[in-house]
């Protein structure tokens, strides 16, 4: 009898999915919290150390450095992606064959495996054989060692992240722009508004929800970026591009400090939750401000 009930109320259909969800999302999160209180090298049995991992984290200047690198990385990437994708969205919002074809060129980097994308850029920026330095030399500048200089290496990775994300965010802007109501523009035209005024006072405020999506998704993507950095610089030179996920990876799978890495993951998770919360608050404040 019971079995038939399960089928009738269709609970049975969500079971397969939730088995995998439990094993590979819920359980790891629970495990992460538990492991943070243990010292474990994967070989010997774990030993309980209380808050020691967290104490060590507080004093670990390279851990905090990795957080700062991640924040810097996000801080530089965000405005570049925002402006690039908005411009692309404005240029390609119309549904004609030209726009449809051109969108492919901007969206495609997002589809490329990041290992291949990172490799391509590493070649492009290579000191002796790269196209970028070749062009610089033609223009009379000295070649630049893009990936061996701490500041430039971070900048290079930011550019690649922009290359990956802009086309994707452009699509969000196109969807947003196409949904804008015509009436506002007609009214503004009657009032004699210039194109720039229309853009600044109508388009930009009306796109608020799209802006928030773009900003949130860009931050989220920057926070979980691992592959681009791993491929292009492996975190170097020194720790200049060691973003937080890469640092955690090194602690866990190079130094085999599983408990320590779990504690670090918790701190990173908390920081991203705070940022998600702040973005949401800003969103709500704007709503209360009545900007449509």
């Amino acid at each position, binding site marked *: 009898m019971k079995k038939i009930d399960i089928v009738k109320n269709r609970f049975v259909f969500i079971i397969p999915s939730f088995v995998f969800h439990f094993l590979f999302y819920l359980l790891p999160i629970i495990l*992460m919290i538990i492991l943070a209180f243990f010292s474990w090298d994967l070989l010997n049995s774990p030993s309980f150390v209380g808050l020691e991992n967290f104490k060590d984290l507080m004093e670990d200047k390279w851990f905090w450095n990795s957080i700062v690198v991640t924040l810097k990385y996000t801080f530089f990437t965000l405005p570049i992606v925002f402006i690039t994708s908005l411009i692309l969205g404005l240029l390609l919002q119309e549904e004609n064959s030209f726009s449809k074809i051109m969108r492919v060129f901007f969206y495609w980097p997002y589809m490329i495996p990041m290992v291949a994308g990172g490799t391509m850029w590493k070649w492009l920026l290579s000191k002796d054989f790269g196209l970028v330095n070749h062009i610089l030399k033609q223009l009379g500048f000295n070649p630049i060692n893009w990936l061996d200089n701490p500041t430039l290496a971070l900048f290079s990775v930011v550019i690649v992240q922009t290359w990956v994300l802009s086309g994707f965010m452009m699509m969000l802007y196109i969807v947003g722009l196409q949904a804008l109501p015509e009436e506002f523009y007609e009214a503004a035209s009657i009032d004699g508004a210039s194109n720039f005024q229309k853009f600044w006072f109508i388009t930009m405020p009306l796109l608020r929800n799209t802006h928030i999506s773009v900003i949130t998704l860009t931050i989220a993507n920057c926070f979980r970026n691992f592959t681009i950095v791993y491929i292009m610089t492996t975190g170097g030179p020194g720790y200049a591009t060691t973003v937080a996920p890469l640092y955690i990876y090194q602690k866990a799978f190079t130094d085999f400090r599983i408990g320590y*890495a779990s504690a670090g993951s918790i701190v990173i998770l908390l920081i991203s939750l705070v940022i998600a919360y702040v973005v949401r608050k800003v969103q709500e404040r704007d709503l209360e401000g009545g900007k449509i």
Partner: protein
Amino acid sequence: MRKAIVIILAILFMIPVFWTVSSSLKSMNEIYRYPPTIFPQEISLEGYKNVINESQFPRYVANTLFVAIVSTVITVFISVSLGYGLAKGTFKYKNFFREIVTITLFITAQVIMVPLFVVIQQLGLIDSLWGLIIPAVFTPTASFTAYQYMRDLPNEFLESAQVDGANEWQIFFKIVLPMSRPLMAAISIFSFTWRWNDFVLPLIVINSGDKFTVQLALSALQGQYGIPWNEILAFSVLAIIPTLIIFLLFQNLFMKGLSAGGLKY
């Protein structure tokens, strides 16, 4: 004017790909020549030949295809099933389960990378291709998309089937699945490219060279002493070909998937 700007920007965006393809077709000598040649002076397939003959390239492709296809089939099935259960079910705590899926959308895989490794290890899946398949089959994006799709599926079809005496399984297999073809197509395409492009999971799960995926092998090639650039570049080009084909074939679906909230997991 607008078109000119767009075309210039598009060229800038495609330079890395162009430069890689062009360089991959040069001989080893020409790659290291200064000043660099923009187009290969004579086309050389040396890099491609080396990749395909010397390395275990066919094996990497076979591994990756196996992982991508098997996990995609399971992903499609469990996501459609979940979407149906959540959208058309009447069980207790339904909202609770729905919230869990939504919340999972915001969990970034890298944060749980370490404990995920421990779970995979405890299940005995380390250094096995199944260790790349099983942990990846639940994807929040696919689940969420399936749920949204199923909500719009008209109830009348389900009800009339019930009146005709069909049981739940018949309804699911004979009515729901056939009506979900567009959804299944979309999830298949996205899932295949995610799995083909995946790097972090293979990096932590696979140790032996004969179980490498394409992305892992490409990354490993760069760690070698005296970087064989012609091979790396040829490998990069080969690694993006499936993505390119799928993207060009299913362009519209990708673009639509975006507006329907189909985000990368």
